[in-house]
């Protein structure tokens, strides 16, 4: 099973913010992390992550810094900002609300009386 395109697009922002909330990271590792966590079922076209990162940066939710890694490769590391943490909190409660609503609908047995 793979996640539909619309849902991938809608969840990209919260996923990125949640990963960055655990510590700063760079593009390639963010994609790898999403792939691992979803057992490869959330399939991003890798390049699409970067416009998402830049949009979040423009909105002031995250901040980037170019650094040279241990392997000598230039990487741009992203770090979550206070505003990003606040937005993530808000998004989290929205996703939880959707999730719990759906869950209730799917778990309640139809009432026959």
């Amino acid at each position, binding site marked *: 099973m793979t996640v539909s395109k619309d849902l991938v697009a809608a969840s990209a922002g919260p996923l990125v913010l949640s990963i960055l909330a655990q510590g700063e990271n760079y*593009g*390639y590792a963010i994609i790898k992390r999403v792939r691992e966590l979803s057992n490869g079922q959330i399939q991003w076209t890798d*390049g699409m992550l970067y416009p998402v990162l830049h949009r979040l940066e423009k909105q002031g939710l995250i901040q980037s810094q170019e650094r040279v890694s241990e392997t000598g*490769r230039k990487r*741009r590391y992203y770090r979550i900002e206070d505003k990003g943490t606040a937005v993530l909190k808000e998004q989290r409660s929205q996703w939880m609300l959707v999730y719990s609503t759906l869950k209730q609908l799917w778990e309640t047995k139809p009432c026959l009386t």
Partner: protein
Amino acid sequence: MFDLNKAISSWRIGLSERQTCEKSDIDEMESHLREEIDSLTASKLSEQEAFLVATQRLGDTNSLAAEFAKVNTSILWRKRLFWAGAGLLSYIVATYIAKCASTGFVLLARFTGVKGYSLGIVDLISQIVFFLAVVFVLYEISRRKDMQGGLFCKVADNPWGKFILFAAVFMIIAAGLAARILARATMVRMVGLSEYGEIAIFGAYAGLVWQISMPLILLVVVICLRPSKLRKAGAQS
């Protein structure tokens, strides 16, 4: 033999031709690409296979460029303005060179015995020929592959390169102005007023020719340099 660096640099050119990615965006994705290729070659893929898989996973250049266009809204306009400025400048430089060179020709013709309104005709024809020659040279320079992706961008991206570029443009305009004044003064002194007047009449005709030929030249240049044609040329090389 597959050359990874060559493949990556042509991938970069393909992306930068779409004009929606900043250089730093492409750098970032190149670093991603190389990391993916490293991890794929570590799992026994050849460099060429790894490159193909990694670029496939990254997404095709068209949709990548379209995604970046949504974020980088200002870059497209900046680039268009840049090209419009470059075009205007080329026009100014071409007319300066044409006018100075034609003055030289008129003086030469005068020494070889041409007189009266014939001098005006010499002026008109040499102006047109030189103008077209300069436009052709500029066109050939801009058509070359390394001017689009490589050399020119390198100069424009370097802060000193930018300064030198501006200084060079300023010098060309200043030199053109000085040369025109000098050429005119020399001409008045050398050919006499009545002949200068004849030349001036043809100078007015030259103005008419510019007005008609400029849009046509512009149209030809735009058609020859359109992005789809450049892409095809890039795919062949």
